[in-house]
């Protein structure tokens, strides 16, 4: 495989080693062309004897332009394609698709990133950005010149999915998967299914008790024999390759623990989130009568006899302090999204228990988005008073002499004078925080954002996929959200899994490490380097040689530099290609 069908050629059109490369330089609307002189970039490479087509285009990714490329590839008999536009994260599949439609080997295409890595980074230096773009495109051409046709690896997939987490998201996901014909294993860490929602009474917006929702899902699961539920269980091992993984699950038994093994094609991670727990002293937390939203919910749901009581005392007034543990300059910067609507809903429930209770909402913005606006309106109609406090001046909560609570704030409408409201109960509207799941996170190599929640591949377009092949995320583990949105995410992950597994096979990138057997001395250096256990040793006459499992190799290239004999090459990124690309960057003639 290390052999190149075409050696870097000498000038001259009739040279048999010449490549026929098409280069397309994208304006990206103005994202690139506002800073990079794309016409100059084109001019700089148009005379390269291996470049048959050099064009600039408003949007390389637009369908019309794709048609043009297909047309060019076929009519000009191109054997290489270079697209200089945005990050390969965005459009690698797009232009591989173009290549495929034009019967060009998709691995003869190189993506050159002159947007994220150039125009966006150098908006203040048009000249420099243009020069850089020229160098990057030359490097891309140099790499493409040495490309060889590769075929994707085909792997059989297992029609089964493991769902990690047995809350509302995980349970609904499991049912969704089973309903389209996939086997499911639900792995729940706790002894009971249901997660947070399973402990809640009537929830917004329809007042369906969370407990009932969970009970309904559990009943549906019981009717589906293709779903296996494991409680007291944790995912502890994952090996294998895309579409065909071996998952090891540790199940705690009453007497003995058990390690069970499952073959699955994909994973859906639905491990949920925790609720924020205030520090003692934070906004009066620890004072008798200062409770979190979660604690308050239980209190309201358990209220009987037309009155709300706290430690035997009737509650006649309540203050809600919003954004506790959220939207903080120091601390959690994010908004937890669900808490405004949850609090507004709680206040409606309170007024249904005892309409005489006076309720004060101390907020920063009432984020009752979409239809939740109706709840907000109802809450105000039922007498709730909403006061806005400045972002930088949270209310102060103290216990007054009579044992009641005094909430002091600057009301934005009547400020700057302070206002003190005496109340019987203070509810700290606490948001969500990421769960502490280090073991799972590192097992699956799931990326997390700086907020601590799992990150999707693309927050806009690919919201349930992760950069880890075959591992989807759904629900609150990727960010705070209400239950119904978590359920949607779970079902979207069902769809994503089905897209992979319903075909029965998957195609993997052949961009994997390959060993030149002749050069390998069997020293074993590479075996310990591979983070994916993709390299093994096999015995031979001269001792042993390294062997790469293409299905397991992720193409990270970690083994290439450690090989003392330079016997390992990464297909699609061979050493020769990378050296040529570096030469291209430095704008020198390639070293033969």
């Amino acid at each position, binding site marked *: 495989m290390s052999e190149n069908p075409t050696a870097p050629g000498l000038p001259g059109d009739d040279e048999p080693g010449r490549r026929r490369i098409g280069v397309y330089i994208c304006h990206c609307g103005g*994202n690139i062309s506002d800073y990079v002189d794309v016409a100059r970039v084109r001019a700089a490479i148009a005379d390269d004897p291996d470049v048959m087509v050099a064009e600039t285009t408003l949007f390389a990714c637009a369908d019309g332009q794709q048609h043009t490329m297909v047309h060019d590839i076929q009519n000009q008999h191109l054997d290489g394609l270079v697209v200089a536009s945005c990050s390969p994260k965005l459009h690698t599949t797009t232009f591989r698709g173009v290549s495929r439609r034009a019967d060009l080997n998709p691995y003869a295409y190189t993506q050159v990133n002159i947007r994220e890595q150039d125009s966006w980074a150098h908006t203040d230096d048009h000249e420099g950005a243009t020069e850089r773009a020229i160098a990057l495109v030359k490097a891309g051409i140099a790499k493409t010149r040495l490309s060889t046709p590769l075929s994707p690896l085909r792997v059989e997939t297992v029609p089964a999915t493991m769902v990690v987490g047995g809350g509302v998201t995980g349970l609904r996901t499991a049912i969704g998967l089973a309903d389209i014909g996939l086997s499911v294993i639900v792995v729940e860490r706790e002894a009971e299914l249901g997660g947070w929602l399973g402990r809640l009474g009537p929830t917004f917006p329809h007042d369906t008790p969370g407990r009932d929702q969970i009970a309904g899902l559990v009943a549906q699961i019981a009717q589906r024999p293709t779903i296996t539920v494991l409680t007291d269980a944790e995912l502890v091992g994952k090996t294998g390759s895309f579409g065909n993984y071996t998952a090891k699950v540790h199940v705690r038994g009453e007497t003995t623990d058990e390690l069970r093994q499952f073959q699955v094609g994909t994973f859906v991670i639905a491990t949920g989130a925790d609720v924020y727990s205030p520090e003692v002293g934070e906004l009066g937390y620890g004072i008798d009568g200062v409770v979190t939203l979660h604690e308050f919910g239980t209190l309201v749901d358990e209220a009987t006899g037309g009155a709300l009581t706290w430690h035997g005392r009737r509650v006649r007034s309540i203050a809600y302090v919003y954004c506790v543990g959220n939207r903080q300059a120091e601390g959690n910067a994010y908004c937890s999204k669900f808490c405004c609507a949850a609090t507004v809903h709680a206040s409606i429930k309170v007024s249904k228990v005892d309409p005489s209770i006076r309720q004060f909402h101390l907020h920063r913005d009432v984020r009752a988005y979409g239809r939740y606006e109706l709840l907000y309106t109802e809450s105000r109609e039922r007498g709730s008073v909403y006061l806005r406090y400045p972002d930088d001046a949270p209310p102060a909560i103290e216990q007054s002499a009579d044992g009641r609570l005094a909430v002091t704030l600057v009301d*934005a409408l009547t400020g700057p004078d302070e206002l003190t409201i005496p109340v019987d109960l203070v509810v700290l509207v606490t948001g969500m925080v990421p769960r502490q799941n280090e073991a799972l996170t590192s097992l699956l190599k799931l990326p997390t954002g700086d907020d601590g929640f799992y990150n999707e591949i693309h927050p806009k377009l690919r919201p349930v996929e992760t950069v880890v092949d075959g591992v989807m995320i759904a629900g609150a583990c990727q960010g705070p959200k209400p239950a119904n949105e978590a359920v949607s995410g779970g079902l979207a992950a069902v769809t994503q899994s089905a897209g992979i597994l319903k075909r029965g096979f998957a195609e993997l990138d052949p961009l994997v490490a390959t060993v030149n057997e002749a050069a390998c001395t069997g020293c074993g250096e590479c075996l310990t380097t591979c983070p994916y256990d993709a390299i093994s040793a096999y015995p031979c006459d001269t001792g042993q040689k390294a062997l790469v499992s293409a299905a397991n190799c992720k193409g990270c290239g970690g083994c290439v530099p450690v090989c003392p004999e330079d016997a390992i090459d990464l297909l699609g990124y061979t050493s020769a290609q990378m050296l040529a690309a570096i030469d291209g960057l430095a704008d020198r003639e390639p070293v033969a």
Partner: protein
Amino acid sequence: MDYDVLVIGSGIGGMESSIKLGDMGYKVLLVEKEASVGGRMILLSKVFPTLDCASCISGPKMSSTINHPNITTKTYSEVSGIRRDATGTFHATVTEKPTFVDWAACTGCSDCQTACTVAVPDQFNSDLVARRAAYIAFPQAVPKKAVLEREGTSPCIGACPAGIKAHGYVSLVRNGKDEEAFQLVLDATPLVGTLGRACYAPCESECTRTKLEGPVPIRLIKRFAADQHYTAQGATPSGPAIEVAPPNGRSVVVVGSGPAGLTAAWQLARKGYAVTIVEKRAQPGGYLRHAIPAYRLPHDVVDADIANLTSIGVTIRCNEPVTDLAALKERDGFDAVIVATGTQDATAMNVPNEHVAGSVNGLDFLDDVANGKAPDLTGKKVVVVGGGNVAMDAARVCLRLGAAEAKVVYRRTRAEMPAHHVEADDAEAEGAVFEFLVAPIEVIADGGRVAGLRLQTMRLGEPDTSGRRSPEPVPGAQTSVACDMVISTIGMSPDATLYEQVAGAGRGGRIKVDPRTLQTDVPYLFAAGDVTTGATDITTAIGAGRRAAHMVDRWLNGQELTGFSALDGRLDVVGADQVLRRQTAYGHRNPVKGAVDLVPRPRDFHEIEAPLTPAEARSGAGSCLDCGVCSECQECVHACPADAIRMDQREKVSQVTVGAVVVSTGYKLFAADAKPEYGWGRYPNVITGMQMDRLLAPTRPYNTVLRPGDGKVPERIAYISCTGSRDQQVGNPLCSKVCCMYSIKQNQLIMGALPLADVTMHYMDMRAAGKRYDEFYEQAKDMGAQYIRGRVSGVTEKENGDLVLRYEDTEGTGRIVEAEYDLVVLAVGIQPNRDVERLFGDERLGLDEFFYVAEPSDELDPGVTDIPGVFVAGTASGAKDIVDSIVHAGAAVAQVAAHLERSKVASTAEVLA
């Protein structure tokens, strides 16, 4: 089953649904009402909170959609009548609207767009700029194919009995394409200059502009184009623009050289026939030359028009009366014969002394005048009998010949007079006098000459079959009028002697033909014009001439006698109300009228109507409202290198069966003029958020951010949030969810595009709820955007276009503040797309109280509607941002797949049982 799933609407929700279903192996039919897939997302600048370029991330989705092996996409199509049968299979009607472009041939080159002469507001640029009637939706359209927007036949075209594309040549002249305008009329008839003068312009009566200030001067615009042409090119050839097929070896003879005959000859000659016109008079033109007086239609204009014919080889043989039609074929060898002899016989009054000296019929009188044999009428009193156009012509000619009095006597009243009202008015202005409700009963003769006319007084009785009230004599009431001459103009009829033995004559001596084919019972013999109908007018005769030529050509080629698209099977005429409703604003246009030189008792035959000046012609044409949208000017037809324009394309309706339906019809933006206090639609510098997104997009209309009113680069920009949301006044208590975030996004983009601009947003609650949304809001604040809490009560405009916002500074001083801005952006909200109500047949799809598609169990079953097998994806069920829509579509797809799997199991079970 034709498809597993029908997806309706190809916004991000519909595309996502289709792709995911396709990936799972289901066969999908995706139907989109616009010409391109992509919905609104592709029109956005960037998306929050990642600031990804919307084109870059939605363009490839569009491409994947259309190229997906499991997805069939029908754009510019609509779904209706969805019905579920007992087995759970859905039946739906898919209507592919005509694009008038053969998409298989169209390459998306946009030459048609460049050539098109009609500009309409560009809905893909939020009406900020215009697009053409021939258009490609937007630069990144998928598929990139052109569409001709035709709302129907423009009323002017619909009114023209000649099928001349009035809207087309008006539009061409509007664009300075005078020669193209001439050529467009010439394509129908050689009589361009004639029509520019002597046509009664039924088009103008139907012109929608009449409902406003007055009609577009359509006839004079045509005359303008003709005059330009003849001045530049002389009274000859039509130039290379007119296509003439090479000789096809066959010959046709046309008997008669009036407008019908000339037009038929013209059309056949252009198709390659050797055409001969035989005319019994000394000069060709029929009544154009021999009846219509020169002050209305100068003879040199008729000559120039006729020269068009002779220039392409039509032979005109004058002084050659025909007596034997059959001989033309049998003896002379013509392959077909067209009779176009018109109405030559004048109807007699049938009163005593009708033929004494001084009593003539109008046709003979006008013929004499036209041929230099005008009598001297100096000081004479003339009575003209009749109320038609010939009467008016006769009276006015008499005045020009010196008559002391020209009196028109008519047996009904002015209201019933068949003469065109302009003719009657002009005759009166020149001194003709009218006497109504009198009928001639005797020419009073004295010494063999006319001495007067005895008249019976009439009154109006019941309406007759034509709807006019019939005159009836008032018993015993008679008068008489002394005069020197009586001109009778009470009617005319065909002379049937030529054909009554061959083809037969019908009522009034008219030749018998099939009115659709104009073929007589003798297959090679056709007829056209007044000889088949009785007296009509020039345009009707031209229409007939075109029809006869078309049919003769079809007959000679052995084809069915159909397909006369110039007049048959046109699109329905667009109603004036429809046009006026469509316009969002009118500029007042002073009507352009031709100057007519009307003086009492004119003494010569100079042309009395002045031509339009170029400025008048442009201005008059500029007042056209483009009723049908496409003007049928044919510029795109000429421009298209792929020959892909198909004006005769019509909608294609098909029935499909599917296993499930996904409704992803999206939302409508709030119409900001429903908040009049913010001035959108009245103040040009108040725009909507979507308009701002267009100003910021890579394919932006002005290539920079500027205010539409005067093009100034704004320095102070205000946002008003919750426009049309959280607002009981406009009937929408819901929060639209996206407006806060798109405003924050735009705030950041504006600060990037216009570093000097100050951006202020007036908001109620900043609903930055979502992953990384609040951080995005903080980022905008850090960049310098100002956020002021409180609802803006109103916007007023200053003289310089700046805007004053009035609001209570709730969190500051508490006072009422008036703040000035250069540009105000209304953060308009989302409203339900109620088109969804038209999708279903008997079984109605359940909507919620706000008219979004209801999801009865949205907590655990998102995407499920109240009809089993029908699912909803994206904003059709409520406000969502892009990522919400994608997730929701993903969920809906899981529901669709579960439904299809269940159906499969059920039907397998049935088979096994």
